[in-house]
């Protein structure tokens, strides 16, 4: 059994939790962190229970590509990423693509990921249209 200390992924409070994991990798549940500077051992219902979606059978487990008939088919990472790059490159014209390419990042992503999104947008895709859901 192990307990992994991490930060709750729901609201902006940023509570401390340990996620308890059995030897067979089953997530058993949460242990609160009494000494966490924000939460002091207290959690809300999302903190206590919010992890349980993780192995839901509806999780996306492979890349999907839309086919001619409108349905999705499973694809390899290589193929999907190539399609993504192709599609994005196809929309790039001239020096700046601010009106042609939009990049929407997420408050669910880490700081590192948001930084990459800003960098990918401005330095890679040459678009300044990068935003996230702060307004919503």
């Amino acid at each position, binding site marked *: 059994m192990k307990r992994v200390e991490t930060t709750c992924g729901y609201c902006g409070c940023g509570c401390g939790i340990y996620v308890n994991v059995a030897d067979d990798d089953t997530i*058993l*549940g949460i242990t*609160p962190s009494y000494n966490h500077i924000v939460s002091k*051992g207290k959690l809300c219902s999302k903190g206590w229970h919010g992890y349980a979606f993780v192995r839901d059978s509806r999780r996306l487990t492979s890349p999907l590509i839309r086919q001619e008939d409108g349905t999705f088919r499973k694809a390899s990472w290589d193929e999907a990423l190539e399609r993504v790059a192709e599609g994005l490159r196809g929309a790039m014209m001239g020096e700046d693509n601010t009106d042609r390419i939009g990049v929407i990042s997420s408050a669910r992503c880490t700081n590192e990921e948001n930084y990459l999104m800003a960098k990918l947008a401005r330095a890679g895709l040459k678009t300044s249209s990068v935003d996230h859901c702060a307004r919503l």
Partner: protein
Amino acid sequence: MEGNKLYTLKRENLDQVLNIWNKKSSVYVPVGQGKDINLMPLGEAERTEDYINLTLPVKEMIFEQKENLFKWKRNEQEIEVDSLAHQHRKDRILYGVRACDTYGVAYTDRFFLQEFPDPNYQSRRSQTTIIAVNCLEAGQHCFCTSVGTGVFSTIGHDLAFTPMGSYFLVEAGTDKGQALVSEAGTFFNETDDNILKKKNALKEKTEESFPLKMDLTNLWEDMSKTFNAAFWTDEANACIGCTGCTNVCPTCTCFNVVEENSDLNQGQRVRYWDSCQSDHFTRNAEHHNPRDSVSRVRYRIYDKLKYIEERFGFKGCSGCGRCTDVCPTYISIIDIIASTQKAAKENPEPPAIHQTTAIRHEIKDRELKSLKGLYTPDIATITRVKQETPEIKRIFMKYDDPDLHKNYEYKGQFFQVTVFGEGEVPLSIPFGPDQTDELVFDFKNVGSVTNVLYQMKEGDKVGLRGPYGRAFPYDILKGRNLIFIGSGVAMAPLRTVIEPVVKHPNDFNQVIILASALRYEKLIYKDEMKEWEKNKNLTVKYALKDPSDEVDAHVGYVNDLLPELDLDWSNTTALVCASPRRIKKVARDLMDLGMKPSDILVTLETHMRCGAGKCGHCKVGSHYMCVDGPVFNYEEMMALPPEY
């Protein structure tokens, strides 16, 4: 075990001893991982002795936060089921448990291992050895000395350690503990009774150091005078339903059963810790929720301070104080006890009947006919489906294993019917004790499980667990007048008694069936009732909202029919199945006519999930509806807190 042997163990040798034990078993010790004290496998992080208590009670190691119950797989037409009472890979030794938690284990042992023994708990518990380390210091919210469960462990441990400076006093509580001592025998030195004086002095000193001291002698009496006190509303307003208090409680045992499907053809049924502090813990498929926010918050406190002890003889609260530590809105059992004592003194209310009358519970170990253990269903095949009314279906089925029919005994009131991949639902048994070759259920499409069941056809497979529950008594009815009162699908549970009554008419005086519904089409057993009526001492009367050409029916409530019945009321038993609200109305009218409340038999079908008095969803006061009920007499029903 024979005579309590006493040993000493030098503190400096403890790690060596733990390492010896760790060869055969996995030893778990308190570590200050990150910032918090948790039990972790020896060697994964540095062991600590500097702690008040573990963050989660040790129950998490025996009744785990999530456990698999069984897995199922559809193979063309067949369904295979395997129970999953998971075993630990190695036996576990849990070192460093405090008295409040060992007491908790003593209680959970009592709770899980008797009546319907819980196979998961049983397998884990048999692989677990518990070593208490007694406290010499109290935390901010500790009050074990006030409830009488501490400060030193007296129960629930296999070995108890008391730190005494440079050495530990070691006492074996069980043979299992004694065996551990033998395993590392060279490090343990036997000692005599004189050391107990020193231990007691240490205990007294620690007890004196407790910041919290409460006098709980008259608590139950105080509680009986404050059931509706104003402070409950304040507590309820504050509660945000995080469920933290129950998650960290050493004596909380409720769980919910959830389907986790890999795909349409296979999945597992698992259980997670559940909490009576979730708003919808007690809500049924028809949105009826017997607990509002006040009764929800009050229920937890009553369960901890009264109901558990009333039923099981163990303190329901071991005084660990964790629920107070983790509450985000500062609800404190300690403050609530103080509020209760204050309100009882300053503003007592006359105790309600449910606060003063204790009703019986028959506690006995039950035998299960099922092949695979308590939580694993047996497979049955649907043989026939009949549309009973526009909203009610009748479904006939047989066990796939014919032996189950041979051994079938009618001694219960309901089955738990599994629709694989969707879930489980309790359905009443609407057939008599003589019928053993075929099982029949009548049900309405009201929730997600019944919705799928409603679409099922001949040849489809379902799972069955049961029968569960206390059934209507039969023998005590002999020689009496009987009135059956039921509405719509609520006639189904009554049919278990109607069937034998019809077969043995001479055993009874007058028998009257009062069937009610909105319209005649909505009644179940229309044809059967005409058949039953051929018995000359049996009459069927109808009460319908809309008049019907089919039968001569009273247009109005069933209650209107009662005064016209010419019965010797003192020799009459009524059997009523309806919503609690309707039951009360009918019972009041019957009592006005001269019936004794104990002659009115009712069935209270609350949110029953496991059927075995374990999951806690159907608990009302100190009673589990699925084990003690669902059949009660009206006197008993009134002695339950009004939360059904």
